[in-house]
């Protein structure tokens, strides 16, 4: 064993607390590597999300009809759209749609997830999972085209079936009283599969022991679900509701194809108004202003959800 002499180290003056130690070459390499891996995603987000959002905000301050050069409008576009009854009605419709569509979607998805998660052969469970998820992979526009035929008052299969049991034809898409309900039904039928899959995953994550303990304490059936399952499923419920609300606030295809926003304005949604302003009436400034308002609304609703989640969401 060689006796190595440790060189005397001259004590260096202590570095000021605010200055971080210089990263070593290895740390720099690690950071560079991390940056390399993150770069495609960051570039994607910047190019396809941040820039268009910034572009929309800028465009909302201009009058632009595609044909002529843009002219500065300041807040005029916002005054214009906030004074437009169609825009205000579309926000109201969208909020009504969101409340009912998301509530129905979550309720159906939860009930079905609980049912499928119960005592059932594995193969049958797979069949149900696939069946419930299937509408989600189809194009919303093509589903809506088919549904438009099914819900047709005069020639639709739905009214024909109702007729077999003596019910008079329902003006599904042609009455202000039922058009929104029909649009919500079509939307929920297509969308609930996503929440369903989330709930199935969430239910599988709940340890069996907790249910067993609850059973020993005498909790059964609905009480068990209310006191054990739902609280433990609340993180999944939060995710499902956040995603569901964001999607519902951006609904476009179903009302556009099924009713084109009618009768009157009864099913006109905010995204429809954006589309109509921009691509039918060539008012890109006003369309962008509505888009910015929708962005703010979605941000506000999502922030509120996360704020409320502190109180209602339970993590194991």
């Amino acid at each position: 064993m060689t006796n190595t002499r440790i060189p005397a180290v001259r004590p260096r003056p202590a570095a000021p607390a605010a200055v971080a130690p210089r990263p070593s070459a290895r740390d720099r390499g690690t950071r560079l590597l991390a940056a390399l891996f993150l770069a495609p995603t960051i570039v994607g987000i910047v190019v396809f999300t941040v820039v268009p959002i910034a572009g929309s905000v800028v465009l909302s301050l201009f009058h632009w009809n595609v044909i002529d050069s843009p002219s500065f409008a300041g807040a005029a576009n916002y005054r214009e759209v906030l004074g437009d009854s169609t825009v205000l009605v579309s926000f109201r419709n969208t909020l009504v749609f969101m409340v009912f569509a998301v509530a129905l979607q979550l309720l159906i998805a939860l009930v079905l997830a609980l049912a499928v998660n119960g005592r059932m052969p594995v193969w049958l469970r797979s069949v149900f999972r696939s069946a419930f998820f299937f509408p989600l992979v189809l194009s919303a526009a093509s589903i809506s085209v088919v549904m438009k035929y099914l819900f047709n008052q005069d020639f639709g299969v739905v009214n024909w079936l109702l007729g077999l049991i003596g019910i008079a034809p329902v003006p599904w898409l042609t009455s202000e009283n039922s058009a929104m309900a029909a649009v919500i039904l079509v939307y929920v039928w297509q969308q609930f599969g996503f929440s369903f899959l989330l709930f199935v995953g969430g239910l599988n994550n709940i340890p069996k022991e907790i249910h067993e303990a609850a059973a020993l304490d005498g909790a059964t059936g609905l009480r068990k679900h209310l006191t054990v399952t739902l609280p433990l499923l609340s993180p999944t419920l939060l995710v499902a509701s956040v995603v569901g609300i964001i999607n519902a606030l951006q609904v476009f295809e179903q009302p556009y194809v099924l009713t084109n926003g009618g009768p009157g304005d009864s099913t006109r949604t905010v995204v429809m108004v954006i589309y109509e302003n921009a691509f039918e009436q060539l008012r890109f400034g006003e369309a962008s202003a509505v888009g910015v308002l929708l962005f703010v609304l979605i941000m506000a609703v999502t922030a509120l959800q996360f704020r409320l989640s502190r109180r209602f969401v339970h993590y194991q």
Partner: protein
Amino acid sequence: MTDSHLPRRTLLRYGAYGAGAAALAGTAASWDRLTGADIPGRDDGSLVVATLGSAFDQAAVRTLSEGFRKLHPDIRLRINAVQAVDWSDFFAKILTQIAAGSAPDLVYVATEGVQLFAQRLGVPLDRWVKRDAAELREYFADVHPSLVESMMYEGSLYQLPVEFNAADMYLNKQVLKRAGADLPPADWTHDDFTALLRDMKRSSGSHFTPYFWTNRLWGGVVPWLFANGTNLLAESKAPGGSWLWDTFYPAAERRGRGGGFRWTTPQATGIRVEEAYDYLASLIQEDLCTRPEGGNGSNLVGVFSTGRVGVTPAGGFWAGGLHLAGMKPTGYDVQYFPRWRTQRHQFGAAGYALLRTSKKQDEAWQFIKYAARKDTLTQLFQGNQTTPARRSMLTGARYQETGPAHWQVFYDTLDKFPDTGPIPAPPQVAEVEQVLLKHTGTALASPRTVRPALRRMQDDLEKAMERDV
């Protein structure tokens, strides 16, 4: 002994370098595809013609291109068939292309967009028409002046019409027979029309709708407004245009012609407009026709050809559509729109508009002339998917296979009713159409809702017409 294993960190680093290099190489290799530079004819100096994709099939587009190349081998041509649901969707896509800096030289434009394009994007064809007057004389002699006038704006001609469709009435003969009725006479009235619908309703089952219509600018409420001697917007004629009428049309045909239509003051609350809406609302109340949102063109062919609908307004385009759906030529027929206060019909026409941004305007004019030739149109419109603008092309032979028996109605709608005019389509047409569709749905919910809805329509139309496009 040295360790032959690569440290995980090094492996990851080189992996990242490799992935980055592969991504860059992939992007470089597919750059032409990503930027669209590999599209044949793009940025190679070709004359670019944008057509409504669904209007012409691939064979027709090939015919159009090859015929033009034979005639003008020095002009490279690219047909850009833009797929769209309808004209407004098509215009939206064209305007998006223009905004993106890839404007075509020529755009196929229907009445809905004639004034918008003329006012903001188009080039008047006057100087070329005057220059080539001798060559064009045969064309104008074959085309009704109403179609030409519908392509004029403020005294100038912006397009040569190549097709049109007027809203006539198609009748299912099986349903007529069931109702014990004959094909109505040419001078039938709207009372005769109502009586016929009632007869049809009585003689058919509960899953039958006598009259089917689509809520849109063409063929919706507007034909009824025309028949009742009114319009959605006050209609007048722009001055000018005599340079064209005096050159190409005899005195009898040019009387009353001007420099194109002007649609200005909304008149949705006019008594005649209310009458037309009241009439349609009463038909709905009696279950004699579909509600406006119930109808759309895509399912109409099916329900008409199977006898679940008796009557519907359509143009010559439907002869081809019904034939494709398997309907026999003897299974249906066509008659003029019924008379009310007048028997004025409405039509929409289409032709090629030349864009101001085009650097190849002389070549584009050659294409416009070529596209209006009889031989070109004969090749293009073989399937009766529209009504050719040239009178001489409407023959018994053309309609022998598809029907209808009274095919003369298509062009006689112009010849026998010279006041027949285009659908109201000012430059603000998109908003006008949206307002019309929206409030028509509300107005026809019940007889009580007609007036309040028309008042709201009037307000919205006034706002729309005040706006500059």
